[in-house]
């Protein structure tokens, strides 16, 4: 005998939780919801005790959950709250042009929705997360952010004076003021677990939805695949305590990350050729700017600003757009009296999903395999221009020396594009409302849906997409 539910949700990260929040608000009081979480619930207080050396226990890491034959790593947190446990809380919106990169610049793939379609949901997520942000932004925005912006550093202020709304205090889920049980961010710069619980997490922001009487949460329950019949999914197979179990669902929502959403579909026999292909993320490169006579002080939060000077424009026809992050960690310059005559910037380039980078099945049905060659030439062409671009955009500062890493970071902590959204199954896996092209009662959420990934951090957008998906599905 199997359990039967109105809704079965896979995962408890941003994508699942924002969908569930909206669903519970709109669905009837008699609904029955099952949430299957592959990991455990490690409360904030326990994680904090671990960091303080007051407790000892193991938290399962992402790398233990999939196999890969290359040096590339994909980072996420396979436990309750998903990547909200390890994210830094950066929440820039995408730009309107990000949604039509093929039409405008002839590269990648357009989204089946526009900026205007998602704009109301951006507002809603920003309110739920209590985002701190500036008054002027490079993207259209109706109304102010819920919390005031973080303070720019002395160097940031010079850059903002020159570039206006293309250089802004970073919009962020690291609260600039105390809000609810969240403290005010005080630049401790260890955001994977904030010492003052300033950062929005599923636990501190949406934990209450999992206490709703309609919801049953099963932990350490890894979903393997779906039973499908014609154009519907009937049930979910999962493993709990080494036993395979099954639950029937009217609607099934995959809210795992881009590795596991694709893997579950592949395990279910999804024959769409796009399923699993295109895994990618942004590519980040650090640069240090040493100044002759300029102290870089006074910024607040771990990343004080975002630069958009290299983000959007005609150059995207030839090479990748880039968002800039101004770091405010307590780094020093190892020279007497010049302790802070230094900036550290991270230049983060968009990548294009490539067919040959993909999720495939392995011999172990519980472990997907990631096949990844490298990021695109498009991204690499952007990176190759960095010395020239730093000179162009930062050259007016009193720079003594520039050091650019001659390698990119192993990860940007964003896994994207393995179940892309689009108009037809020829170029995508799900439709504009995130419903699978074939299995019409299956929704696939999260950044796996991104047809193009943009230079910006994905979390705000994927959360907004989840709110939109719930509303459209229940309409």
């Amino acid at each position, binding site marked *: 005998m199997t359990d039967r539910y109105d809704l079965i949700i896979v995962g408890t990260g941003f994508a699942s939780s924002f969908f569930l929040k909206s669903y519970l608000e709109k669905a009837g009081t008699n609904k029955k919801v099952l949430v299957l979480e592959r990991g455990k619930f490690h409360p904030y207080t326990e994680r904090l005790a671990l960091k303080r050396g007051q407790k000892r226990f193991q938290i399962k890491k992402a790398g233990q959950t999939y196999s890969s034959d290359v040096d590339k790593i994909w980072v996420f947190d396979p436990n309750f709250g998903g990547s909200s446990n390890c994210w830094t809380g950066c929440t820039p919106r995408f730009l309107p042009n990000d949604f039509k990169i093929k039409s405008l610049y002839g590269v990648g793939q357009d989204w089946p929705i526009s900026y205007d379609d998602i704009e109301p949901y951006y507002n809603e997520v920003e309110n739920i997360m209590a985002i701190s942000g500036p008054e002027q932004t490079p993207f259209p925005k109706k109304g102010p952010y819920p919390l005031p912006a973080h303070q*720019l550093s*002395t160097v940031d202020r010079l850059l903002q004076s020159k570039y206006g709304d293309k250089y802004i205090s970073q919009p962020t889920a690291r609260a600039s003021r105390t809000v609810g049980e969240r403290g005010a961010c005080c630049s401790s710069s260890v955001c994977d677990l904030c*010492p003052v619980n300033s950062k929005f997490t599923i636990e501190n922001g949406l934990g209450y939805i999992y206490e709703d009487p309609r919801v049953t949460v099963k932990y350490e329950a890894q979903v393997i695949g779906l039973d499908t019949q014609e154009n519907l999914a009937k049930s979910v197979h999962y493993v709990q305590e080494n036993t395979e179990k099954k639950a029937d669902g009217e609607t099934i929502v995959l809210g795992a990350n881009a590795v596991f959403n694709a893997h579950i579909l592949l395990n279910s026999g999804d024959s769409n050729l796009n399923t699993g292909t295109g895994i990618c993320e942004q590519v980040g490169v650090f640069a240090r700017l040493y100044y002759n006579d300029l102290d870089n002080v*006074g910024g*607040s939060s771990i990343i004080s600003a975002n630069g958009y000077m290299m983000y959007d424009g005609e150059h995207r026809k030839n090479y990748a757009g880039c968002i800039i992050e101004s770091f405010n960690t307590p780094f*020093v310059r190892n020279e007497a009296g010049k302790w802070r005559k230094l900036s550290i910037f991270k230049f983060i380039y968009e990548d294009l999903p490539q067919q040959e980078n993909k999720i495939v099945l392995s011999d172990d049905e519980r472990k997907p395999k990631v096949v990844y060659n490298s990021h695109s030439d498009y991204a690499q062409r952007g990176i190759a221009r960095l010395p020239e671009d730093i000179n162009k955009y930062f050259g007016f500062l009193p720079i003594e020396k520039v050091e650019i890493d001659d390698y990119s970071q192993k990860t940007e902590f964003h896994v994207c594009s393995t179940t892309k959204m689009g108009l037809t199954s020829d170029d995508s896996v799900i439709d504009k409302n995130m419903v699978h092209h074939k299995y019409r009662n299956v929704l696939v959420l999260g950044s796996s849906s991104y047809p193009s990934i943009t230079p910006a951090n994905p979390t705000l957008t994927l959360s907004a997409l989840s709110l939109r998906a719930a509303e459209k599905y229940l309409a």
Partner: protein
Amino acid sequence: MTGKTGKISRRKFLWIALLTVIAAVIGTVAILDFNTVVIKMLKHDLAHLKVDETSYETFVREAEQKQHWQGKFFDWKKRQLVRFSYMVDAILPSFPYKYKYLQYRSDIVGDFLLSTDFFINKMDRDKTVTYIGLYNPYLRPCSNPFSNLYYPQKV
């Protein structure tokens, strides 16, 4: 040495010199573990400050006890790069990844200073710098000395 003249050839001399340098580096690396290198670097780089002599040892000991270096700040690979580069730096004016070595060296010096009262004393060079405890933002949050809390924006 050549049989006839009693002089060594230029090629042989270069080989002997190279092998001597390699032997010296290997010998030194074997002797100088990472903690010893850290102390030497700190003493050299902070010679312009009045640092309480016991601070260096205490810092290194506590870092070892609390597995500070093994954490994300300095993994094994980075520590070895610092060790080798420290030796090579004494011999060669330039070498691959020297810039990265100097960045890591800055990180170590910064980490040490954050573990002292140097920033609490507003970077006053005349005051003795004393170790106050390994820098851990979870035990001492809000202590980023360059943040807005210490440099509030003037309105």
